[in-house]
Structures are given as structure tokens and as C-alpha cells.
């Protein structure tokens, strides 16, 4: 009952796997250790965790090593691993006011309570290749760290602190309302447990965006600013740091289970069409009350500021539906920024399609035969290609 080619297929897969390993190792360089990848490829790890929707730096580092640095594949490996884990608890809502901040900026005001903290960022560095990195050694790293420590005057250090939020200013000035929009669906949805249905509740949209591919989100956010949208969001506040995660255990006690690093962006939407609308205010009353702003919210794992900011902008756009712009269309944005689905489906084109193609080809030929028989001169469109759903 053997079908010869079956063995061929399995052999091909095995050989392909061997070749992948060969191309990884053929340079005969020192293998990168997991800890090296985890610490020195910090931002790649963060990005993989965010898109992979699993906060696990060591696993993310392993994934990155395993796939030779491909960000799509790394996120994919994490998602696949995540799907095997049981969901035993839901965390309490993260409170980013408790964040141990490493970086915090606002572009809406020059000074903000607590001050602007530039923190670790490449925003103001020259993008020049730095060959001196090639001379780095454990010794030079030690020296750098001890020099840095010497620069710090312990007497000048502040006590550990948390920071109020910039949106507090908006709330205090009456520029923003705590009230949700009237009629907004505020159910807490879980996109990993249920398929989304449109219109999706805000919680589901936020979850989808938090897991979305960074580049895809950037494309959407950029389009809203450049001509396919009506917004130029302003960074109300961008903060990066560690927040505690708590769960309620089976006896009902609140338990601290660890901390995660997140980037959070609160993008201030325009006072015009993006403004918050209180249900009880008419148009006239709203005008009289002065400008009202709304927040587009972005949050993602690790330090990935581009993603947090773009997520905030896109979230803001999604709350103002407009069929003319891709970024203001829930279905367009949420389905097409989903990294694992987009990556998989575009790559599935590499699978054989000869039956599907044959069906189309035969259909086209039959039509040609029929037309020939009728002596009609009709142009036959390429069979099936546009309609075969695949």
C-alpha cells in the first residue's frame, strides 16, 4: 500500500530541518547563550513577548535564538507555546499609577508634575554605526557599570516614588471626562478564548492591538496622520517601567505574583470630532463647556514605544468609525494587524495549490470549448483565480 512519494515528503522535511541547522552553524561561531540574548537583545525580546502575547523573557530569548532572530517566527513560537498553557487565574487590573518608572515623557505640556524623565532611549542619539562595540568585553562592561555608579551621588537620590498621570491635569481642568461614551460596550472580552464579533467591545479591540504586529500598527497609525485620517494625536504621556501583577487566590486573598515591564501611551485625541461626549450634553452645551479631549490608549509588554504610541493612535481612530479610512475601520485594522494570522496566511501561498488551480483551469477551458462550439467571440476571464477563495 506504499505510495513512494510519501517517504519523499518526510525525507524532504527532515532534510530541510537539517539544512536550517546547517545554515545556522556553518559559520562555526560561538553559540549565543540564552542569557546573552535575553539581556543584550532586550528590545527584540520585548517585541517578541508583546506580539507573542506571553510575558516570559527567557522563553522569548530562546525563541529568538531558535529562529535566528526572525521577529514573526519568535512571536509565533511564543503564541504556540502559550496555547498549551492552562489559564488558571485572571490577574487583577494592572494599575500603571503604581509603575516603577524608568522613562516618562509628555509632549502636551512643557513641565509635568514629577518632571519629564528621559530614561533609556535612542531618540536623541545619532544613528551612526559604532565600531567600538566590537571591543566590548566583560572587563569593559564592569568598568562602565562601576563608572556609572560612581557618577551617582547617593545623597541626591530621591526616595522610590510613583508618579501621578498627565491625564490627571486634563481631568482636573475639566478637559476630559471619566465617563465612558454612551452606549459603549464595556464588557471584558477575552480574544484568546472567543472569536471576536463585530462591532467588538473596546476591551477586545485593546487586546487585539496589544498583540498586533508592531510594523502593521505603525502603518495604520501613520496613515491616520498622513492623509487617511483626521487625527494627529499628541503624546499625553508615555511611560515605561515595571508594574506589579496581582491575582486573587482561591481563598479570596490578593496575592502579588511578580512584576512585568510595560510601555504605556495615553494619546490625546483632538478636541473636534474625537472629543469625549457626555451623554447628557447637547452640542451647544458642550461647546459652552470648552474643549473636551479623549484618550487613545496604548499598552504593550516590554519597552516598545513605537507600538504603544501607534496603538494609542489607532485605538483613538477606531472609536471614531469612518468608512473612508482604513485605520478608522475596526474590521480592517483588527483582522489585518494580527501578526500570526497575517504571517501564516501570506506564507501559505507556498503550499501546493494544484487541485484548486486545476479546477480553475478546467473551468476556463470548458468555457472556451463551449464558446468555440457556439462560435461566439467572448473573452474568457482567467478561470477561478479571482473567486476561488484561496
Amino acid at each position, binding site marked *: 500500500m506504499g505510495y513512494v512519494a510519501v517517504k519523499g515528503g518526510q525525507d524532504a522535511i527532515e532534510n530541510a530541518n537539517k539544512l536550517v541547522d546547517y545554515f545556522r552553524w556553518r559559520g562555526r561561531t560561538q553559540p549565543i547563550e540564552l542569557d546573552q540574548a535575553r539581556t543584550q537583545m532586550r528590545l527584540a525580546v520585548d517585541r517578541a513577548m508583546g506580539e507573542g502575547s506571553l510575558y516570559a523573557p527567557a522563553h522569548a530569548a530562546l525563541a529568538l535564538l531558535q529562529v535566528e532572530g526572525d521577529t514573526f517566527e519568535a512571536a509565533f513560537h511564543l503564541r504556540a507555546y502559550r496555547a498549551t498553557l492552562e489559564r488558571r487565574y485572571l490577574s487583577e487590573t494592572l494599575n500603571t499609577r503604581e509603575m516603577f518608572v524608568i522613562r516618562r515623557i509628555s509632549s502636551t505640556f512643557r513641565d509635568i508634575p514629577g518632571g519629564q524623565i528621559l530614561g533609556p532611549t535612542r531618540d536623541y542619539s545619532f544613528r551612526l554605526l559604532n565600531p567600538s562595540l566590537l571591543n566590548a568585553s566583560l572587563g569593559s562592561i564592569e568598568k562602565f557599570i562601576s563608572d556609572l555608579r560612581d557618577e551617582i551621588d547617593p545623597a541626591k537620590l530621591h526616595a522610590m516614588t510613583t508618579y501621578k498621570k498627565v491625564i490627571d491635569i486634563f481631568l482636573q481642568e475639566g478637559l476630559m471626562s471619566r465617563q465612558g461614551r454612551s452606549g459603549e460596550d464595556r464588557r471584558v472580552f477575552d480574544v484568546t478564548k472567543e472569536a471576536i464579533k463585530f462591532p467588538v467591545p473596546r476591551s477586545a479591540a485593546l487586546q487585539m492591538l496589544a498583540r498586533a504586529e508592531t510594523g502593521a500598527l505603525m502603518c495604520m497609525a501613520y496613515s491616520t496622520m498622513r492623509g487617511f485620517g483626521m487625527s494627529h494625536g499628541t503624546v499625553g504621556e508615555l511611560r515605561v517601567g515595571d508594574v506589579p501583577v496581582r491575582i486573587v487566590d482561591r481563598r479570596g486573598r490578593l496575592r502579588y505574583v511578580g512584576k512585568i515591564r510595560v510601555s504605556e501611551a495615553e494619546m490625546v485625541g483632538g478636541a473636534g470630532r474625537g472629543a469625549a461626549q457626555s451623554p447628557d450634553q447637547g452640542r451647544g452645551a458642550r461647546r459652552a463647556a470648552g474643549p473636551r479631549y479623549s484618550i487613545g490608549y496604548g499598552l504593550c509588554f516590554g519597552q516598545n514605544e513605537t507600538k504603544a504610541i501607534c496603538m494609542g493612535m489607532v485605538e483613538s481612530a477606531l472609536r471614531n468609525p469612518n468608512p473612508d479610512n482604513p485605520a478608522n475601520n475596526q474590521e480592517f485594522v483588527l483582522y489585518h494587524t494580527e501578526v500570526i494570522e497575517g504571517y501564516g496566511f501570506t506564507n501559505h501561498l507556498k503550499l501546493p495549490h494544484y487541485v*484548486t488551480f486545476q479546477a480553475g483551469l478546467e473551468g476556463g477551458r470548458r468555457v472556451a470549448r463551449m464558446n468555440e462550439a457556439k462560435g461566439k467571440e467572448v473573452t474568457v476571464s482567467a478561470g477561478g483565480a479571482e473567486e476561488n477563495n484561496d
Partner: protein
Amino acid sequence: MIEVPKFQESFNYAYIDEFTKKEIRRKTLKAVAVPGYQVPYSSPEMPISRGWGTGGLHLTLSLVGPDDVLKVIDQGSDASVNACNLRLFVKKMANCALTFDTAEATLIQTRHRVPEEILTEKQILVLQVPQPEVLRGVERHEAKTRMMHAEADYAKIWVTLYEAYVRSGALRSGAGHPIMVNGRYVATPSPIPSWDVPNLNMARCLYLFGAGREKRIHCIPPFTRVEPLEFEDIRFKVEEFIGIKCSVSGQDKAFMDQIYADDFSRSWVINDSNFLDKVRQGPRPPQRLFANPE
């Protein structure tokens, strides 16, 4: 290299955790109860790519047990690289038996083909579906297509078929001809050739359709009416392989693959790899032959 215990975990039986498997089975039952209706489900990520059969895998893994005999085909062939890959994965995770023999299998996962051999009530055919929404071509928004299904509003797809006829002289040429299931829901049979569509009607086996990326399951239960969309005067037709014989077996009653040799000469061979094996070995297995009118 890694001695950290967190990297030494093994996986749950059939990969997916039990709660999620239960959820998928519940959704599958709903799909069985409402033939042709697309049931949304969780669709957890699999270690294979979206669009490469994750929906089929969800169904297979939620159903498979150690006593099952599994067959996996891709475009009619057990030999296709992706079929080999899926088969090995399910075997590794579920420790079930494997077969190439269509009659022997209890569970068959397939992409874009229904086997030529008639399936029985002891068998389940799981079809991988790239786009479960048959109306997507005429209406791009999911919220609207769901409403159209709810209201059985299929005017747009009928108009599309009519337009295809007016333009080209045929109802539709290509794989995945839309079907009416149990007289209620228009659904996609997945991109199977028209040749396979009559096999879905009043079949003895259970057909499950899994679309992983789009997170939908639909179903054709046994002995369910399945009609390809067609007009009273313009009928649905299966592919015609006129004057064509399989170059390996000499037979002509099966869906054929077109093969090009190194010198670009063209020949034909039966597409269904197991069916071809059986045809070559002796008595032809039970098969439904479609009359090609005219």
C-alpha cells in the same frame, strides 16, 4: 545547554489543553446541530502557521484518541510535504495510528479534496478552510455577512453567479462552488473542485470544516441535503476530463492532475494518491461517479 526546569515541560495529550478542547467540541456540536452555520470558536495558536491547516488541526486534535486511525491528505495526496508534517505532529501529540488507506481511517484531515472512495458512517472528514465566509467575495464586512446569513439574504451571491454566466458562459469556474446546506445556509465547501461537491450530498460520513485563522467551524452532518447553487436552466457542472486517461493506471473516472515532464510534455494522473494505489492493485474501490450531462 538549558537546564532550567521551565524548559522541560511536556505537552498535554493532543497538544491543546483540556478546557480548550472541550470548548472546541462544544462548538463543533453546535455546528452539527445547525448545518452550514459558521460557529465562532477560540482557535488557539498552533505550532504550525495560520493558513496551513490550523482549523483542521483544532478539529482533529479535539476529536482524536489513542484508538483512532488518522489519515492526512493535502490536495489529494498523502505525500504532500504539509500533509506529512501535520500527520507527524498529530501522531507525536496523540499517539494514534496512521494510515494512507482511505477505508481504514476513522479520522481524515484533508485540504482541498474529498477522497474519491465513498466514506462511511464510521468516518469523519475534517476539511481545512482558508475562508469560511462564502459571502466574503460579495460583502467584505463580517458584521454584514453574519446578518445576511441570519436573514437568509443570498441575493448578492445569486447575482454574482448570474453575472459570471453572462460574462463567461459558465456559472462559475474554479474550486469552492457555493453550496446550500439543508436548504437553509449557503456555505463554502472549502476550495474543493466541483468534482467533489456532489459527494457532500446525503453522505454517510460527518464533514467538519475548520477555519483556524478566521476562527469558524461549520459542518455537514450525515444524510444532509447539500445542493450546489445553480439555476433551473443553467446547471452546476463538475470538471470534465474529456478524452483524458490516467497515464499510470489507464483509468479515466477520477479527478486528474496535469503533470509536466522535463521536456514540457503533458500527461495526466489520478489526483487521489490512495485511490490511485488501489486502482492499480485491483478491484476499484466504491466510488460515486457523476453523470456529466450533455
